[in-house]
């Protein structure tokens, strides 16, 4: 196990996630296996969806997803997209990752009517019924005849809290 003084997470470079815990050299770094299991358990997004993608950490608990296979580490500005924050107990996907990969989700997705989706997009919280687990949900609404993932909500105490980042909020 690496100690606190190890090179560990660095904010100026991307380190590829280890495949499994036995490959781990940086203490606390999530593994690819853990990440794939989390997508599957939380949202029903199967590991095959990410077969062509690699996962990388830059900074503490910021996990990026990249289509492709570069040599690790990579000292650049961005690599694919920021996909998941793993620093807290409950891992949180980004709006962008949900819009890109959330189509394949079968669990913990809540479909909103378009007026409710507009409230969510504006960044507001709203009381809504939900039978499932509390926690982060994929919020979808219908666009051009099919449900389409819009972003991430946090469901607690009968309320859907909008996790839409300020820069993505919009009044439609």
């Amino acid at each position: 196990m690496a100690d606190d003084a190890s090179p560990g997470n660095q904010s100026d470079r991307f380190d590829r996630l280890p495949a499994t815990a036995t490959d781990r050299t940086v203490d606390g770094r999530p593994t690819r296996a853990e990440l794939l299991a989390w997508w599957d358990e939380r949202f029903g997004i199967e590991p095959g969806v990410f077969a062509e993608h690699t996962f990388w950490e830059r900074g503490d608990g910021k996990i990026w997803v990249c289509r492709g296979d570069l040599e690790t580490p990579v000292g650049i500005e961005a690599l694919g997209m920021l996909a998941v924050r793993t620093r807290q107990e409950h891992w949180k996907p980004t709006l962008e990752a949900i819009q890109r990969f959330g189509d394949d989700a079968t669990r913990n997705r809540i479909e909103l009517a378009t007026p409710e989706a507009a409230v969510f997009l504006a960044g507001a919280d709203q009381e809504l019924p939900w039978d499932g687990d509390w926690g982060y949900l994929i919020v979808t609404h219908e666009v051009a005849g099919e449900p389409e993932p819009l972003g991430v909500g946090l469901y607690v105490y009968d309320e859907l809290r909008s996790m839409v980042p300020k820069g993505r909020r919009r009044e439609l």
Partner: protein
Amino acid sequence: MNVLERYEPLVDDVEAFYDACRRSLPSVVRVNTIKTTVERAKRALAAEDIAFEVTEWNPTLFRLLDDQPGANWPYVHGWLHGQEEVSAVPARVLDPDPGERIWDACAAPGSKTTQLAALLGDTGLVVATDNNLGRISALRSNTERLGVTNVAVTAEDARTHSLKPFPQAEYDRALVDAPCSCEGTVRKNPDVLEDWTVEHVEGIASVQKGALRRAVQATREGGTVVYSTCTFAPEENEAVLDHVLDAEPCRIEPFDLPLEHTSGVTAWHGKQFDPAVQGAKRIYPHHNDTGGFFCARLAVTG
């Protein structure tokens, strides 16, 4: 429009040219095929009663007849990206194949980067370089909003682009959509004419030459490099090509462009250019009711 007067000898219809430069620019969006299909995007716009017409030459480009690009659901979902019509030309001319490695040398704010990523079907790799951190922030916002995962962003001067983070191989193709004097964007931003100086033209031409030379060097033999600008200045267009044809192993390739245009010019202010620069294409605002643009395609020969 004093600056534009210097281009009168190059323009086929001066009156139509000035008329077009005075009109505001139609609002155009590109369908992001990483997240949706052209057909779904059409249905989504129709469902919101947003009037549009598909451009004749590119089925992924829609002219919005009344609206702004950002105020609708398909935009929020990253299905649409506001992109001027001629700005969609160079990625089409580069014409990448899925799985290829592409360098976008002057990438921010990312309209062409994300278009290239979509043409690759979000496979392969687009290395997107810019030297301005503020503009890179806009680039990142656009790549993430559009769901692009095959992009690697570097902050550096294109002229000294390092292949060190990407040790696998040279690029299959490169795009140099160079910083320029931007008179071609006058319909969107009339201030460009007030800020125009000949000193800037000369300074930026040196940057353009350096970036294009680096692109030819970093691309494999048999690969393709596209050079484009939104200026009418031959100093920044044909003269740059003429310089790089001399300095690096490459030649100008013909390409089809289903938009009205004229050929590159071989003489300007007493200077003669390699006749091959006629293979480049100039688009003036009155040709297709767009901004102005310049585009050339180079084959790397060594």
